[in-house]
């Protein structure tokens, strides 16, 4: 991450459609050259936020700076941004070359300069053989490449991606994901990328902003968000297979303990966010891959016996479902392990890797 100044700064931004509030006094600073991913379920306001940055939506409150310039009232073209859309949004009646040059022709840039920029973009994206084709004659992946090219030729500081890979099939998506990452490394531009795909978010981002209900829930590096989610929503939204949530009681004292059913888990290794204040209902979250089983479980601070209920082989590994304190509980084993329904297993985990959430507020404890 290049730590040389702020590229995009969103300050106290609010937006309402009529009486319906969509974004609530939102603040976000994006460093120069940073790759920020806005992640969230549909309807969380992430695309709306991107449209506000682009200037395609008029905001209700707050202001937006790009490269230190207040662009709150500027037209999209004057903001120094390029945007890539989910549906590609290529002009269907123009060739690829005309698509790329449209914005430059509008801006009245000289012909030889346009040709130079198109040649450069086409080379970077390897679309030279496609320049004279119409969008209808391109595949989905090629279209998205052209759409990225259209942002590229604008020679801008900030790239905005609005779910650019969501219309592609799984294979192409992972290919283009790598290409976007390479592109970012090559160009070193600031990129703001909207997606609902957690894998895209984890693999691409310098920092992820997890959004829900028009509010940024957590803004942090992917690993931090994955390992130390600030609340139950973030914990449940990231990770596939999903995190196990076990409802129970927190019992104060030294050491504090988590109780559910007849199971008691000592929390002396758990790093609380602040002081433990007494007892109360809470939820323990542990990711399936942080659970060990068999002999290794005995070396864990917490271990217990369980019985296999369902086995889900996924190829690279296998997800095993069992019960812990009377609740469904899953853990991950290597694909080679052959477990059958009903097999007794010994499972264990380190509470230091778990997350504890307040049952009421859902916040991390």
């Amino acid at each position, binding site marked *: 991450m290049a730590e040389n100044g702020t590229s995009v700064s969103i300050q106290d931004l609010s937006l309402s459609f009529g009486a319906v509030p969509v974004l609530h006094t939102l603040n976000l600073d994006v460093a120069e050259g940073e790759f920020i991913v806005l992640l969230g379920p549909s309807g969380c306001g992430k695309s709306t936020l991107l*449209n506000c940055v682009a200037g395609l939506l008029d905001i209700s409150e707050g202001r937006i700076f790009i490269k230190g310039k207040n662009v709150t009232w500027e*037209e999209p073209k004057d903001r120094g941004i390029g*945007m890539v*859309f989910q549906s590609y*949004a*290529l002009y269907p009646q123009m060739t690829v070359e005309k698509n790329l040059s*449209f914005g430059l022709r*509008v801006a009245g840039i000289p012909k030889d300069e346009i040709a130079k920029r198109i040649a450069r973009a086409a080379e970077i994206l390897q679309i030279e053989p496609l320049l004279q084709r119409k969008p209808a004659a391109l595949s989905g992946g090629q279209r998205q490449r052209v759409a990225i090219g259209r942002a590229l030729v604008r020679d801008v500081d900030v790239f905005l991606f609005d779910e650019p890979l969501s219309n592609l099939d799984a294979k192409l998506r992972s290919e283009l994901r790598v290409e976007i990452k390479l592109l970012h490394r090559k160009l070193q531009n600031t990129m703001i990328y909207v997606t609902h795909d957690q894998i895209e978010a984890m693999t691409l981002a310098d920092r992820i902003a997890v959004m829900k209900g028009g509010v940024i829930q957590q803004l942090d590096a992917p690993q931090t968000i994955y390992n130390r989610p600030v609340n139950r929503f973030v914990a449940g939204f990231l990770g596939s297979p999903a995190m196990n949530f076990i409802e129970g009681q927190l019992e104060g004292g030294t050491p504090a303990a988590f109780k559910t059913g007849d199971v008691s888990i000592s929390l002396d290794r758990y790093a609380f966010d602040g002081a433990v204040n007494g007892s109360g209902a809470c939820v323990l979250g542990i990711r399936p891959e942080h659970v060990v089983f068999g002999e290794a479980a005995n070396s864990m601070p917490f271990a217990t016996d369980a019985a296999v209920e369902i086995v889900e082989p996924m190829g690279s590994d296998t997800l095993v479902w069992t019960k812990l304190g009377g609740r469904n509980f899953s853990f991950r084993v290597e694909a080679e392990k052959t477990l059958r329904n009903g097999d007794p297993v010994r499972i264990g985990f380190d509470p230091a890797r778990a997350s504890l959430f307040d049952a009421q507020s859902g916040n991390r404890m």
Partner: protein
Amino acid sequence: MTAAQITATQPIQNALDQAAAGPYGAKPRHVSAGRIGLYAFLIVAALFFLIPVYIMIVTSLKGMPEIRLGHLFNLPGEPTFQPWLDAWLHACTGRDCNGLSPGFYNSVKITLPSVAISIICASINGYALTFWPYKGANLLFGLLVFGAFVPYQVVIYPLIIGLSSVGLFATLPGIIIVHTIFGMPILTLLFRNFYAALPVELFKAARVDGAGFWRIFFHIMLPMSVPITVVAIILQVTGIWNDFLFGVVFAGRSNWPMTVQLNNIVNTTTGVREYNVNMAATILTAAVPLLIYFISGRWFVRGIAAGAVKG
């Protein structure tokens, strides 16, 4: 059993196996009695509705003595094109005996500008309503669509007063304005629905590229609007060409369109009623919309369907 025998019986055996195993492959199609009856009915119905056309054509090719014999369905004994020439050049409308041709040219002079102006206005309307929503845009659109349901009779008198106060009553520009106004509701609806079905991201991309209202319209939207424009042309040409009411009220005597002239020819009763000339004149008047339907029926249906489904 020899090898030859096995080979010969093999297909039969296969068929037997299949019959035993139940349905296999494509479902066989049977022509049922009901289907034959249905098609027979449809063909008879089509022929029945074609009878008037048949009678018009044969009558227009007969001489008056032959018509007086009263054999309506007979083919012309001595085919003649004189009625067609008369209808085009010599038939009398009131005191003038110049046939339909002046009416044809009047209709062309009315239809072409009306179609062009109304489509240009409506496409801009639809584009603005879809992509540049402003306060009250929906209300305006609602009012505009409501205009499609206002009966013409209600507005004729106010329009006459209005147009004559600016000196446009009974003039060519007057009738063109009237047709443009009355085409606006349905055409705007058509274009708005077409643009609303386009991905809005196209518009956003163009804005990021720095294009303004007119540039987006002319460079992005208009080139994509060919299908809906064809539909609009068909609707307007047939509608305006077939119009009688506005023509007779607003065009003025010297600009009367073909439909009005046709009415005058058919209703002029000086001496003999020339059925053959009347038939020829009617076919000539109907020829333009008919031709349009035949050439572009496919587009027409497609556009109407598109406009109807995507509300």
